[in-house]
């Protein structure tokens, strides 16, 4: 298998101007992003930047409480205010208004999720009423004048408590807070493995609730044309087509009369996948007012309503022999689903979690049980990594504990259980078949970069001086680019997970590419153009990429789960190849040769053995549209669309190592080093890969050390602003050293794997393992995330830090 190493220090991969790259080298070059000048000069157009003539502004009244019966809503004072255009509540709308869940499980209790609460509030962000006013300040003024009569109920926010018999029930009609029970793997085989193994190691881990915090709050503008019933939504979305389909049902508007468009989108991290009440309410408001209506969430609203991530309470046990051989893994997880089932929520703690519990290891028997639990917090759904960080955290924490328990170096225990590179594809006992991998390679490289061999000695010397340094490893596996559609359908998806890509030559020889993914910061315009230019042999600048508009593109599935390059990029490759095939026939006709004899290289068609009989593909494009002289059995035009449905997921992997120093007197943690060695398959643009790793690691470090949604006993969010919830700042994130190996994926024509989530999946356990390692002299075995200074100090002083 081809393997190539690419090294970068803190300065990182060096970028190049696309003009300085030979066309033949465009794929794989770290060219500067073409989207940057607009973003850097204020020319970018985010949703709230759009000002349509005669726009009104919407504001949404949210519940004051996490759990309550609604006795009455009095909107009269708000309605009477000057400049208020409209006020409406649940009783004023006559559409289905029920947000769907697009993933089913056998035991799933599907509950209603009304866009406006009717008689009951189930979390603090639940929407109660919509105000439309001439200006945004006035809309918010009017929201404050709506009087709601609540009958407060007891709230429950953590999933384990919610499963108690006397816990408040979130959905009364269900009589239970259990949203589903799910299992994977073989319980009997796992029991047998434990019975035979030399040791069993157990851990309890909390994977705390996180708030995604895309810098751009969610927003939508609805523009309705009564004369032809056309409704356009400009909105912060990661998947316009998915939003269009779901919204069409929610507000009962024909899908073909609905256009969803993503302008520039300021980050998502999963939070802009889901269908929220808000976009439906804005759409309804515009239809009622018959004028454009704009809504932008305040940051407070995003804290109360953006789907949160993680929220697991897990007990795990590992069966391991004296020699380090892992025999079995048993996992029991209570997963917080929040108050309602968000769009893809049921998939996250099940198929995106249980299936990854084999990690990088050859584990003969695994059994995992998950209870999805309703609580009075916002819906919990995919947040960067979605299920896979939770799985990797369990595996990498328990492997470290097992190594400590049997007195083995944690790197050796890991290595001992890696499948060999020639054992791929590698089937796990939790339904996955890993496409390709060479796990020693990333581990070796990472250990080398941190001088692991020297580290223990250095650690010993430091301890003698009263300094506590530690090293933590994370050998992670990720599954992304979920596919094929038939399989995901069997698993419960209410959608296929193919992607569409259109490649169209214009008559003058330039190229339009259109993809059904929807980037929101990843640099798709650049990377897709690299892919298409490479396939067609045309100049990079001659390729333009369109994304994020249901009216301008073939049907698409969107950007999430690190799928865009692997699935969307592959769709473009296939379309480009179809275009080349057609162009070849036209070229052959023009060159008076048999198509079989016409070769294609670097944008030129030529007759084999007669290279002077040639024709550029861009000239062929003109001929295709002139259609004066093309073969009889060929239609005019030169374009192709592909719906690419991969045969399997792709499986990026890698090793991250954190080296930290901990001050036991203050709990303060300093990074000495952070090394990330990732294998994401072939790289289309190494600089963008590096940026994704950096950003992913930053969110992982955020989870490890700083972040967490905290609720009080009434279900009120305590960390409800950026003053209270730590979004890491520049001084909180260490300089990282990134490196990579390349093990191409066999399941797509680009050989790419996916990189958007890798850092977030890998980082938390590297950091936690490092801190625990540093505090080993204090007998510390575990500390719950986030590792706040106080928790670390308490752990080091044996007073409740690992509570």
């Amino acid at each position, binding site marked *: 298998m081809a393997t190539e190493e690419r090294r970068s220090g803190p300065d990182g991969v060096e*970028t190049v101007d696309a003009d300085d790259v030979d066309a033949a080298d465009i794929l794989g070059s770290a060219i500067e992003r073409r989207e940057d000048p607009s973003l850097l000069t204020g020319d970018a157009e985010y949703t709230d*930047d759009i000002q349509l003539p005669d726009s009104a502004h919407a504001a949404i009244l949210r519940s004051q409480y996490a759990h309550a019966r609604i006795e009455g809503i009095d909107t009269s004072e708000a309605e009477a205010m000057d400049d208020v255009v409209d006020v409406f509540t649940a009783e004023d709308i006559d559409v289905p208004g029920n947000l769907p869940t697009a993933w089913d499980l056998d035991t799933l209790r599907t509950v209603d999720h009304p866009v406006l609460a009717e008689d009951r509030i189930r979390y603090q962000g639940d929407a109660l009423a919509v105000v439309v006013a001439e200006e945004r300040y006035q809309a918010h003024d009017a929201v404050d004048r709506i009087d709601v009569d609540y009958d407060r109920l007891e709230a429950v926010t953590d999933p384990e408590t919610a499963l108690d018999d006397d816990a408040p029930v979130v959905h009364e009609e269900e009589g239970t807070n259990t949203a589903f029970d799910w299992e994977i793997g073989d319980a009997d085989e796992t029991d047998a493995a434990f019975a035979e193994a030399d040791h069993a190691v157990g851990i309890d881990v909390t994977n705390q609730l996180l708030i995604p915090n895309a*810098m751009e709050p969610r927003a939508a503008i609805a523009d309705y044309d009564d004369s032809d019933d056309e409704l356009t939504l400009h909105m912060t979305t990661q998947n316009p087509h998915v939003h269009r389909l779901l919204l069409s049902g929610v507000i009962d508007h024909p899908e073909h009369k609905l256009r969803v468009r993503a302008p*520039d989108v300021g980050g998502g991290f999963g939070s802009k996948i889901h269908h929220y009440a808000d976009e439906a309410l804005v759409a309804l408001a515009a239809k009622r007012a018959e004028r454009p209506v704009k809504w932008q969430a305040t940051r407070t609203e995003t804290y109360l309503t953006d789907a949160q991530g993680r929220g697991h309470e897990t007990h795990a046990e590992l069966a391991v022999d004296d020699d380090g051989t892992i025999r079995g893994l048993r996992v029991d997880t209570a997963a917080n689903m929040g108050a309602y089932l968000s769009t893809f929520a049921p998939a996250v703690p099940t198929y995106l979690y249980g299936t990854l519990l084999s990690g990088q290891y050859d584990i003969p028997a695994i059994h995992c049980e998950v209870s999805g639990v309703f609580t009075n917090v916002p819906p919990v759904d995919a947040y960067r990594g979605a299920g896979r960080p939770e799985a990797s955290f369990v595996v990498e924490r328990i492997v470290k504990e097992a190594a400590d328990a049997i007195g083995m170096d944690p790197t050796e225990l890991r290595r001992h259980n890696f499948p060999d590179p020639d054992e791929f594809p590698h089937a796990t006992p939790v339904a996955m078949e890993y496409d390709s991998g060479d796990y020693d390679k990333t581990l070796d490289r990472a250990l080398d970069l941190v001088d692991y061999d020297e580290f223990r000695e250095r650690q010993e010397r430091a301890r003698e001086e009263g300094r506590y340094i530690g090293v933590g490893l994370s050998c992670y596996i990720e599954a992304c680019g979920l596919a094929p559609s038939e399989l995901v359908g069997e698993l419960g998806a209410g959608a296929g997970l193919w992607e569409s890509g259109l490649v169209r030559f214009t008559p003058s020889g330039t190229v339009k590419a259109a993809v059904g993914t929807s980037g929101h910061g990843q640099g798709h315009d650049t990377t897709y153009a690299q892919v298409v230019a490479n396939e067609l042999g045309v100049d990079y600048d001659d390729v333009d990429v369109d994304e994020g508009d249901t009216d301008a593109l073939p049907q698409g599935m969107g950007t999430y789960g690190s799928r865009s390059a692997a699935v969307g990029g592959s769709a473009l490759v296939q379309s480009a190849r179809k275009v080349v095939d057609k162009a070849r026939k036209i070229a052959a006709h023009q060159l008076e040769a048999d198509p079989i004899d016409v070769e294609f290289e670097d944008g030129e068609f030529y007759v084999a053995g007669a290279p002077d009989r040639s024709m550029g593909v861009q000239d062929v494009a003109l001929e295709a549209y002139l259609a004066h002289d093309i073969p009889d059995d060929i239609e005019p035009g030169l374009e192709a669309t592909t719906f690419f449905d991969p045969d399997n997921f792709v499986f990026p992997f890698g090793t991250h190592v954190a080296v930290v120093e901990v001050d036991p007197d203050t709990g303060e943690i300093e990074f000495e080093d952070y090394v990330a060695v990732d294998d994401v398959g072939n790289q289309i643009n190494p600089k963008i890969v590096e940026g994704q790793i950096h*950003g992913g690691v930053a969110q992982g470090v955020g989870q490890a050390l700083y972040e967490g949604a905290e609720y009080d006993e009434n279900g009120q969010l305590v960390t409800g602003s950026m003053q209270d919830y730590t979004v890491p700042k*520049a*001084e909180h994130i260490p300089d990282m050293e990134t490196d990579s190996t390349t093990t191409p994926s066999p399941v797509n024509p680009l050989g790419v794997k996916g990189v958007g989530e890798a850092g977030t999946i890998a980082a938390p356990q590297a950091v936690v393992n490092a801190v625990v390692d540093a505090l080993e002299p204090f007998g510390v075995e575990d500390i719950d995330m986030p590792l706040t200074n106080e928790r670390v100090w308490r752990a080091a002083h044996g007073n409740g830090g690992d509570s």
Partner: protein
Amino acid sequence: MERDITLTVNGTEHELSVEPRTLLIHALRDEMGYTGPNVGCESSTCGTCTVHVDGKAVKACTELAVRAEGSEITTIEALNEDGELHPLQESFQEEHGLQCGYCTPGMVMTAAEFLEEEPDPDREEIREALEGNLCRCTGYQNIVNAVETGAEKMRTETAADGGTVEGGD
């Protein structure tokens, strides 16, 4: 009750009528169409609304439009001159110091003012200078690289001009 005020933005005088409570950021974005600076929070934390007021980096969400009368306001829209990117804008592109771009106008404006004061900062000083600007995409490393590189470019330009450091405003 609205008030008539005159604001000078990027060298242009704008007459507008605002309520006293109108925040500068909303006057810039909604009334005058300067949508470069963004709104990312309401707690004066994220810095995505940063503009220059009389040459100083200021969070435009934490100022009233009526109080900005008589000041020179500069937004990201005016940082580049004559169609050429400012050296910092160039370096953000070269170093991949942005992804979704939402924090970028504020980040660049803070960095530009900081470099006026400290033309040759080290990495720690850069990280400190940017503590009022949050980014959720980049992990900051390439932003720090961009500010380092931008500083170098600005120093070179200054040396070439044979004079004092010239800023973007």
